[in-house]
């Protein structure tokens, strides 16, 4: 079990910089740590299964980065990138990605009307938009899910269902309960094609 020493004096220093979040500092960290190799230049991911981060809710990014750093959301690819980041650095990174324009991946593929309809019905039945908002842009710790990569959405929703993804609470795990892989594919298609 790792330990972390946080003397009071250290915290005072860390809190000293006047501006809270700083997207420019965040951009430098993103470059240093090579986040774009997986999450795409300017946060729109061209890589299968890698989530886009452009326009994502900053509170969501912050929370997830802390879950990665603390080893609670266990994704091997994210262990190195998150290692040792301070809260302030994480908030800077979140500010950087949040400020980038959200956009679907360029080669999104055509919309399958029947599949999208089915996804829309399933989402309506579970009131997904009550938390993610009607346009699915999210709020605070609830992520933006429109424009997201379809393959990532399908993958991560199945992980919630199978209790393989640990979030800040069990809400998403419960919401996915009982959905089949086909249901999830439909929801992912619907969300990925929302503007």
């Amino acid at each position, binding site marked *: 079990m790792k330990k972390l020493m946080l003397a009071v004096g250290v*915290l005072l220093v860390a809190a000293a910089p006047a501006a809270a979040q700083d997207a420019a500092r965040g951009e430098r960290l993103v470059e240093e740590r090579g986040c774009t190799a997986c999450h795409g230049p300017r946060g729109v991911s061209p890589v299968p299964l890698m989530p886009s981060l452009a326009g994502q809710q900053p509170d969501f990014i912050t929370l997830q980065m802390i879950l990665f750093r603390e080893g609670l959301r266990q994704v091997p690819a994210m262990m190195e990138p998150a290692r040792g980041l301070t809260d302030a650095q994480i908030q800077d990174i979140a500010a950087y990605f949040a400020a980038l324009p959200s956009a679907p991946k360029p080669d999104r593929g055509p919309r399958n009307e029947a599949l999208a309809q089915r996804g829309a019905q399933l989402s309506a039945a579970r009131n997904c938009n009550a938390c993610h908002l009607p346009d699915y842009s999210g709020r605070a710790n609830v992520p933006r899910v429109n424009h997201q990569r379809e393959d990532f959405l399908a993958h991560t929703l199945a992980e919630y269902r199978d209790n393989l993804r640990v979030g800040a609470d069990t809400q998403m795990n419960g919401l996915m309960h009982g959905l089949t892989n086909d249901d999830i594919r439909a929801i992912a298609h619907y969300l990925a094609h929302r503007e």
Partner: protein
Amino acid sequence: MIRRHLLGLAAAAVAAPSLAFAQAPAAPPAWQQGRPAEMANSPLAPHAPRLTVTPPDRIPVSNIRVPDGFQVELWAHGLPGARVMVRGDNGTVFVGTRVIGRVYAVRDTGSERQVTTLLQGLPQPSGLAIRDGALYVSAIHRVLRVDNVEQNLANPQPVDMTAAFGLSDAAHHGWTHIQFGPDGRLYFSRGVPCNICETDGERYALIHSFNADGSDRRIEARGVRNSVGFDFHPRTGHLWFTNHGRDWAGNDNPSDTLHVNLRRGEHHGFPWCAGGFQDPAVPSQRLCSEFPPPAMVLGPHVAPIGTHFYRGSAFPEQYRNALFIANRGSWNRSRLAGFEVIVVREVEGGRLVQEPFMTGFRDDANQRFVGRPAGVLTMPDGSLLVSDEDNGAIYRVSYRR
């Protein structure tokens, strides 16, 4: 560590084949079972947890109000998610959390408090107890014991007691409170893995006790939906516990409650009755009149966490053995309720009264909150520590004549 969630009895149902299931009603997630159709589109959802360090100048000490003669100061900060607190014989204060998975140690050097992270990466380490120099940590089903913890703050070597206790790994309402009773046994609360459901009453909706090694399990209180705080009366030794009423039954129903467990194994009403509220979602086989009434009704959705008898003598006479309750505050209510520490005192004739003690966290005009009190602890000098989960801070309340 990957946690396996077990989400309610409904979740145990076998996944149906795809087409059949598309027509079947969706199994609601644990936290929204019992939600009526007219609330289906409610935007209410649990508040986002804050896991980042709040800089001291942004901690709302100056907002906090206490009764005349008391004063509040910031005692420690930089402990995101701080909840329950226990104190070792050598003065280290240990602090549990939920989402961030850490246990902190706070040492008072006189002029400042030094915060270190003792353990991390645990699934919701919400329960801490201390005895004979050993710190006991409960994290859903996991139980760890750190022997001679105050001598090993830099290098704790936890003994894994998980198998000996055999607790359920259902995450929902699995964030237990633990404490040693006057009988030397280790008490655990265990909530229900749902919002409202008929559940296995031998495993859930109860407070149970064990020998410190995990043997000889005994059910102490039944019919307890979700207790996240309890304590033993300093004089009578009785178990007093707070309990969270269920969600989605309206803004004002049911109330959260305070109970005293007078007989071992006593049933306190879940799922049929909560604080006098006969739950319409449960086929009504048992009436409220069959259960002992709560010692006190605390208010709807206020979310009592820290439940602690004041053991000092520095506060005025009326606070001797008074019960402090930290109401962490509501989410399933259109207007905020709770977000304050109250005190429950006995007055003439043994009657109980409750009074606000520490307020100012809730901003009614703007319907927002600036902090969430969670844990309460008496210090040897008779001052009271109160943790603030949202700001990762600990306040010290003292009295000056």
